[in-house]
């Protein structure tokens, strides 16, 4: 019995010391990432059976456990993966947004200013400095577009390099998890949980989830097998697979995540990534950069095409038609831009201001003897004039015949209406012999021949006022191309022409198309912001819930410290009493 109280006291002291140790451990690790609060599990030492029943034999330390919750950990990991993916994409989107600036720094404004510069050319066609301004503004636009293209390239290259560093961190983490697995498995047999090792492994998996979302399955030996969201095995027991980033075989600027088996890299489908920074990067690369680039290239190439086309319809200051045809039937002329269809590589082609086709090859004038009030508003070319000295080479008009007249007549079927037909300078009807074109006020007069191929239409003539029967409008080759502004006006009309399509279906003006582009990108960034904010809130909430289970509260630990200290003191008191009992016994025995 005497020894009972000694061993009881000693056990109590040991147990309390263990609890003090664990509390100190908790206090020490209050700031250790991934640390789970530990606690000592106590249980009573089995009773000693005597004739008087069971005597308690004191306390014993069963084991040390950590406070964790597998489900909360898993939920937190999923949230971290989503939040990390969204945040990575948002960071990149914020950079992407700077590629398409707004306002006066924008590409749309620059394009608009290229067209606006034609106002001065139209005002003073013979003034070379006005033409130089057009070229300078075009160059400015090209530079801005090139810069935007290069920024996209740099963003793309940066994304691939981020993917590479992410993948090498993933490889390092999976390797560490495999090592932790081995250590944990080797301790499996001893019957106690290796708490700190488990914490470390959980922390590694949490970090891994920040990079790529994984699922874990615990094996019998305590090791965790790690799978990527799509089911791809990353860690099996103590061996880890290696990921790599390879170039997309179809587009070498794109990076693809691949699994290295042996010496070959097998490219994984993008949908195998379900979360984590890697997913954010791949999504940014495949969706955001790709759509921005497609939009930018469409905008650039269609604007350049429209201007080049307009240029080809005109005549430059030296009188050279910008699209005549060489012997092989190929168009010759100097387009404004060397349109490669790509924002990065488009460049200026025209350098001589006099090469700007400001003049229209044809001019219309009202005959002096006209009795009606018709006056010319504009004459625009529907296609390039194919020959240098004739109105139209596709008809039987001799090449020396250089004028064409629109002749108005009273309609034979309805005397209240006017018809018009074309006659050449010798009075011979052109295209159609009988008047069959009814003049409708407000509709341009054109030479589209319903009986002939539609492409034969050469011009559109808009008039204001009302002609009378017998009135004539003469169309002739421009005699003084240096001082004619017909094509410059047609360039200006491009400001209102819906000529750019971002989706291939609906066309918009340059300004509207660019507004649409920055609007789309702005919406994407806004969406990214919202997604990141939601998922980060979720991640924070689950982190908080988890930390309320696993985290260390210093006040609690302080209270426990006092509690365990007092228990320890009590146990010591037990020993003291045991000693005094023993002393009493000894003195008694001494007599």
């Amino acid at each position: 019995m005497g020894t009972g109280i000694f061993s009881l006291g000693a056990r109590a002291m040991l147990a309390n010391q263990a609890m003090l140790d664990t509390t100190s451990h908790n206090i020490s690790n209050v700031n250790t990432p991934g640390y789970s609060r530990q606690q000592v599990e106590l249980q009573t030492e089995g009773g000693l059976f005597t004739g008087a029943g069971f005597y308690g034999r004191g306390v014993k330390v069963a084991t040390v456990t950590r406070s964790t919750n597998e489900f909360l950990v898993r939920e937190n990991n999923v949230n971290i993966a989503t939040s990390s993916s969204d945040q990575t994409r948002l960071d990149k989107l914020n950079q992407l947004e700077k590629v398409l600036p707004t306002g006066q720094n924008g590409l749309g404004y620059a394009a608009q200013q290229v067209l606006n510069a034609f106002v001065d050319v139209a005002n003073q066609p013979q003034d070379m400095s006005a033409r130089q301004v057009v070229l300078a503004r075009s160059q400015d636009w090209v530079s801005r577009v090139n810069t935007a293209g290069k920024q996209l390239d740099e963003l793309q290259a940066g994304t691939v390099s981020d993917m590479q560093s992410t993948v090498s961190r993933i490889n390092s983490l999976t390797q560490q998890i495999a090592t932790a697995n081995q250590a944990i498995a080797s301790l499996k047999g001893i019957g106690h949980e290796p708490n700190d090792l488990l914490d470390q492994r959980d922390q590694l998996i949490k970090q891994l989830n920040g990079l790529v979302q994984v699922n874990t399955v615990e094996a019998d030996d305590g090791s965790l097998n790690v799978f990527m969201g799509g089911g791809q095995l990353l860690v099996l027991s103590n061996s880890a697979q290696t990921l790599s980033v390879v170039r997309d075989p179809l587009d070498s600027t794109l990076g693809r995540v691949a699994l290295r088996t042996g010496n070959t890299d097998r490219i994984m489908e993008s949908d195998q990534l379900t979360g984590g920074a890697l997913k954010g990067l791949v999504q940014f690369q495949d969706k955001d950069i790709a759509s921005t680039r497609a939009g930018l290239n469409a905008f650039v190439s269609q604007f350049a095409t429209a201007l080049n086309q307009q240029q080809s319809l005109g005549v430059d200051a030296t009188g050279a038609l910008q699209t005549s045809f060489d012997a092989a039937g190929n168009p010759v002329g100097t387009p404004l831009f060397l349109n490669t269809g790509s924002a990065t590589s488009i460049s200026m082609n025209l350098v001589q201001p006099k090469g700007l086709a400001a003049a229209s090859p044809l001019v219309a004038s009202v005959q002096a003897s006209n009795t009606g009030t018709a006056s010319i508003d504009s004459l625009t070319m529907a296609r390039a004039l194919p020959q240098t000295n004739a109105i139209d080479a596709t008809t039987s008009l001799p090449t020396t015949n250089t004028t064409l007249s629109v002749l108005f007549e009273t309609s034979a079927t309805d005397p209240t209406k006017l018809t018009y037909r074309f006659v050449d300078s010798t009075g011979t009807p052109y295209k159609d012999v009988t008047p069959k074109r009814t003049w409708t006020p407000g509709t341009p007069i054109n030479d589209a021949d319903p009986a002939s191929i539609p492409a034969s239409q050469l011009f559109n003539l808009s008039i204001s006022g009302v002609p009378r029967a017998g009135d004539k409008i003469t169309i002739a080759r421009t005699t003084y191309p240096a001082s004619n502004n017909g094509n410059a006006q047609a360039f200006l009309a491009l400001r209102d022409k819906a000529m750019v399509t971002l989706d291939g279906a609906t066309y918009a003006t340059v300004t509207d198309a660019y507004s649409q582009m920055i609007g789309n990108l702005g919406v994407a960034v806004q969406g990214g912001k919202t997604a990141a904010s939601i998922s980060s809130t979720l991640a924070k909430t689950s982190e908080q819930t988890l930390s309320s289970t696993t985290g260390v509260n210093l006040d609690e630990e302080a209270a426990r410290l006092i509690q365990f200290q007092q228990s320890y003191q009590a146990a010591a008191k037990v020993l003291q009493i045991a000693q005094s009992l023993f002393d009493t016994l000894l003195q008694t025995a001494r007599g």
Partner: protein
Amino acid sequence: MRIATAHAYDTSIQNLQKRQQDLSESQMQLTSGKRVNVASDDPTAAARAERALASMARSDANKRSLDASRNVMAITESALGDTVELMQTARETLVAAGNGTYSDGERKALAVKLREIRNQLLSVANRSDGGGGFVFGGQGSATPPFVDGNTGVTFVGQGGETLASSSEKLNLTVDGDQVWLKARGGNGVFTTAPGINANTSGPNGGSAWITSGTVTTPSQLPYPTPSGSSSPSYSVRFNVSGGTTTYDVLDNSTAPATTLSSGQPYNSGKTIAITGKGMSVSIAGAPADGDQFTIGEATNNLNMFSSLDKTIAALSQTNASSSGIQQAVNTGMTEIDSILGNVQAARSAVGESLNRMDGIESRIETLKLAAATERSNAEDLDMTEAISNFQNRQTGYQAALQSYASVQKLSLFQYING
């Protein structure tokens, strides 16, 4: 719920950072004065601002068109003003030249004066627009558009007008051909001229001269000729026999000519009616037997310079007959009046377009202002709201800092002593 100490610190630090970020964003908006700094701040507003900016740039471009046109129109207006003055002087000179008592020498001096006026008119017609072009250049001309050649002054530019780019019609040039070389001949409806003597087939032998005539019955007028048919002409033929002068009026549109009236007694200066055609002319002086005067349709091809040339030539003749002088002066006056009318019409059109430009300018300004307002509405900051926001956030940040400072002092360890 238990609070994990480390997490509690992390959370408060994060919240403090968030507050600081909000405050700095608010400050950036205040300093830049813009609510929308990048498109994602408000994509719709950014797109709206983009369109408004384009509209402002467009207004500036339209303003440049307008200024260019206004400049040319002002030059044209003053050129046409000069023209009117010169033509008035020419007219006065011509009136003076009609004085029957003038000697050949005196008339020649007036002819020299007229020649000077004509040369001045030519230089006005070739007036430059100050930028390498010509105000009367029509649709283009590399050299001065009016060239003085062997056959008189011709227009070498391309007819028509060059327009500025604008939603409203703004001229950059005036059709010089129309103004200077395409006035309406005669009295505007028909022309009169001395014809050929029916007997001698030479010029009229008498001293009679014809006026420009008047329209008496508009409904009977054969002019303007309907399209497709040829324009009829008429003549008055004199018969002098035994001291009595009579005249016949003939319609030359048929072959042989139809007689409209015959044997009418002639009184110098009395009105002669072109029977059934609603026109009348008056002929003064003494016609010779067989003298004829013709009446034809007026056309738009009265050339100011040719007309002056013709008059100058007539006045420069030595020993000119008084009827020749009278005819030249009379025709010259009619033509100058017609040309003046044409120039005045062009001048009033130019003046009207200058007038119109003030309206256009104010419309452009209004549009630009509207676009600027739209842009400002879309992306500018409401200062009152922003300042109040900033102060709110500042207060919030201060409160967060203070609470952090006071909470972090609270720990049980503070109270455990030894």
